[in-house]
């Protein structure tokens, strides 16, 4: 049991042990870092490839189709075929494009989403870089990707790309605020920003002491999940690339492997955010019986599945609906949630549950009643800003 649980950790130690005999000791820390980097660099693209397969398969089943089933059994080799196709495609750069920025954007979008993987606790003792500020690092690095999307959209010199880029900027800066506020209760409870320590704080109750099972945990998780779907531009929040309105948004003018890199960043982001959600609210690798990395994988893939499910279910939101939802509902709700978490912390058990749950309920009802509904489509007149 212990062996299976620590399989990957032991594997790394074994590699380090064997290389001790022929490598000078100065290089050993570098080798250790190199092994972690290699593991992530192999794992991330592989996951991304099979996430595309999973998404196509699941969406197809939801729409009563078969999905990819020609290449390999169950279409399992389809991602590889797609990869080869992407690599051999012609790379088209628009004549008016800003060539340097146009070239840099796909690179700049993938690097942050790979960096996200470095702080995720994949299992007991399986965090590549156990940073003291892991959570903050994750949020900070994920905000760089937005700028890369903007670079791509702007450098293409295409109206639709520019509109998509602008939408992406507006959407991500709006949803980042409730996203950050929704993880604040977790930090308040654990008193740490390290992802590994947050998971360790959820030990107990036979591995089911997840923050999801507290009132503030449920609300925080829902806000976090909605915001993370929006942060990675997935349906129903995919207005930056809404096909029916602006062709393909910021990646209209990208083809071949450059397009694939944008696609890759989106899937890596979806996986990383699901993994973070599992870490913060679903107890990370905590769980009974199964090895820790399997629990982590199961939870993460369940959240990824829910993201795909949402895509198969909901229509796309309108821009103004998207904005008012973030600013008028999610943001105040996240603040109410912080209050509820504080109450939970300072009261003893039965009272804390009752009071914090009722605070959340009152906040929810008040916000959903008070929020203005419907939009007036007319020119706004400003008092001071004309």
């Amino acid at each position, binding site marked *: 049991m212990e062996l299976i649980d620590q399989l990957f950790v032991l594997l790394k130690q074994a590699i380090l042990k064997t290389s001790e005999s022929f490598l000078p000791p100065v290089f050993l820390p570098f080798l250790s870092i190199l092994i972690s980097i290699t593991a992530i660099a192999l794992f991330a693209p592989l996951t991304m490839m099979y996430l595309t397969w999973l998404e196509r398969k699941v969406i197809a089943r939801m729409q009563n189709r078969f999905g990819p089933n020609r290449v390999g059994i169950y279409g399992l080799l389809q991602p590889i075929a797609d990869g080869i196709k992407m690599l051999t495609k012609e790379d088209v750069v628009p004549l008016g494009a800003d060539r340097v920025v146009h070239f840099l954007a796909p690179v700049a979008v993938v690097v942050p989403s790979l960096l996200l993987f470095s702080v995720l606790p994949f299992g007991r003792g399986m965090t590549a870089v156990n940073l*003291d500020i892991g959570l*903050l*690092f994750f*949020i900070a690095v994920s905000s760089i990707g937005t700028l890369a999307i903007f670079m791509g959209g702007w450098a293409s010199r295409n109206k639709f790309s520019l509109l998509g880029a602008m939408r992406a900027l507006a959407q991500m800066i709006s949803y980042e605020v409730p996203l950050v506020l929704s993880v604040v209760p977790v930090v308040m409870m654990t008193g740490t920003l390290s992802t590994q320590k947050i998971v360790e704080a959820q030990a107990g109750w036979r591995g089911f002491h997840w923050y999801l099972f507290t009132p503030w945990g449920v609300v925080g998780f829902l806000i976090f999940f909605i915001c993370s779907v929006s942060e990675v531009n997935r349906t129903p929040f995919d207005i930056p690339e809404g096909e029916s309105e602006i062709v393909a948004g910021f990646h209209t003018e990208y083809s071949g492997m450059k397009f694939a890199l944008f696609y890759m960043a989106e899937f890596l982001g979806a996986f990383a955010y699901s993994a973070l959600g599992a870490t913060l609210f679903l107890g990370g690798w905590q769980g009974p019986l199964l090895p820790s990395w399997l629990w982590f994988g199961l939870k993460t893939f369940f959240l990824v599945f829910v993201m795909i499910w949402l895509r198969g279910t909901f229509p796309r939101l309108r821009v103004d609906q998207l904005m008012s939802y973030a600013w008028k509902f999610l943001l105040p709700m996240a603040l109410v949630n912080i209050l509820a978490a504080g109450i939970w912390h300072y009261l003893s058990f039965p009272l804390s549950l009752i009071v914090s749950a009722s605070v959340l309920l009152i906040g929810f009802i008040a916000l959903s009643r008070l929020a203005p509904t419907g939009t007036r489509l007319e020119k706004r007149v400003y*008092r001071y800003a004309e």
Partner: protein
Amino acid sequence: MLFFYLLATLTVLGALGATLMKNLIHCALCLILFFLGIATFYILLGAEFIAAVQILIYVGAVATLVLFAIMLTQNVVGETTLKGLGQNRWWALGLTAAVIGILGSAIHHQRFSAASYAGRLTTQEIGQALVVVYALPFEVVSLLLTGAMIGAIVIAMEDRKKKQ
């Protein structure tokens, strides 16, 4: 050491690009490069928290707002953007020299002891310092920000009376 000079060159290039380039968007992108460079310096100094906050606030929010502001202005790519600077050049040079002089003398007179570098601050200590020792400045800053926010809302307020 080599690493330091590499990063320093990149950061200075970013800063120069932000001021000298003709295309406003290129300027903003160079500014982002500069911000990222500064963040790496914080990491080199062992201040990971500050580095993360630097990226989160300057790259994630400020740079995005700068880009947004540029998108809402006219003549983004125009060659006209640099024309206005001509007659103000000497004023700008004087001001810059004054700022460099003041900052330089301040740094020159400050004695950095080895002890002030050795301490590796944890996030917890920073938090304690913010809400216990420096609680008053912290609150004053939040008051200032609230004031700014109310001002922004007032400016963007809809004129209901005029419409009727």
